[in-house]
């Protein structure tokens, strides 16, 4: 995800100081790790250079924290094209877990245990996220759901692979 685009998007509501941007960002997206000011100012500098934002006013005292930034027409166009372009669906074709399973099979180790231990870890995390979701506001719920659906997909793969382990063993060891 482009962080600069997120900053640009937050500026579409109206001019703001770097501090306001950080505050609004943390409110919506800073669930696990709040932003550093450095990240905000680095993004603002990049957007300024590209002409996607401009300085809308400077208060006495100087320094970047005194400046208010506003989105430009070019910025609005750029933001619009970013929002309307779909994110490339992740391919997930490089799987550490698959590698571990094959290596275990090749070495004659109990590959089923690799899958089972992973399944336990996934279920534990899913329980934690479910509990966290119950105590959270809508934003937190939706973010936890996103994670839960992904972990569920992993689990389904783990179960399918466990069910086809003998088949796979035969294929990789002959």
């Amino acid at each position, binding site marked *: 995800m482009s962080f600069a685009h997120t900053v640009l998007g937050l500026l579409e509501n109206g001019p703001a100081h770097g501090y306001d941007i950080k505050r609004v960002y943390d409110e919506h997206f800073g669930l696990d790790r709040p932003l550093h000011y450095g990240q905000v100012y680095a993004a603002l500098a990049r957007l300024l250079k590209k002409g996607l934002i401009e300085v809308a006013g400077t208060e006495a005292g100087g320094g970047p924290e005194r400046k208010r930034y506003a989105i430009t027409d070019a910025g609005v166009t750029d933001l619009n094209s970013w929002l309307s372009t779909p994110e490339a669906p992740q391919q997930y074709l490089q799987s550490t877990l698959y590698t571990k399973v094959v290596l275990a099979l090749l070495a004659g180790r109990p590959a089923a245990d690799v899958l089972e231990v992973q399944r*336990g870890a*996934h*279920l534990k995390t*899913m329980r934690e*996220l479910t509990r966290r979701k119950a105590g959270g506001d809508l934003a937190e719920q939706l973010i936890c759901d996103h994670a*839960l659906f992904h*972990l*569920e997909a992993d689990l389904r793969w783990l*179960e399918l692979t466990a069910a086809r382990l003998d088949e796979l063993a035969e294929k990789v060891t002959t």
Partner: protein
Amino acid sequence: MSAAGAAAPSPAAGESPGGTLLAARGLAKSFGPTTALHSASFDIDPGEMVAVMGASGSGKSTLLHCLGGIVRPDRGFILYQGRDLCAMPESARSGLRRSDFGFLFQSGGLVPELTCLENTALPLRLNGVGRRSAEARALERLESLGVAGTARQRPGEVSGGEGQRVSLARALITEPAILFADEPTGALDSLNEERVMRLLVDVVQRGSTAVVLVTHEARVAAYADREITVRDGMTRDLAAGAAG
């Protein structure tokens, strides 16, 4: 004849740890040539929610039916509050099912000719509670689950999500010590699944009802305090399996 064979495990004094509400050991059940349960064990404490996971056909529903006293296992024993379910006469077992157990299935458990209110009140009526008092309590239950609006409707006239909440109201109306839920959200979309599961968790947290939650879905199982897995008719405690 005792349900437990000579070589099968049998209940011994002090065997189940103190505080356990329901304990089962070495359950086996066959249907003709099909072995549905091979050797299944299970424990649940009061107020605990335990998910029973496993692939389709692994024996989850058979385990639930045995634990709930609906099906008698061929071997093994089930202690409910220290009493052996398998050794009880059927009349005692069905009494227990009505007074202490609640059941919630995937769908279709409601009587189509009765209103949702009458359906919810039904377990109380069967236990001899008068109509007015039973229906007053039923209405309270429906209200607490957010489906009081269905009271006068028949099950065929309400949505799947509402129907399942009415079924939950009915399952809880007798304030059972254990609720047996078999794929309770299996026919629901994600949003209604979440509603029903949250209500279930609420019930467990507020009262002391324990829940045996059969599901093949990890997202649903994640609402439970812990899970066990059934594979080829054998139970496996995941936490114990993954710890080593």
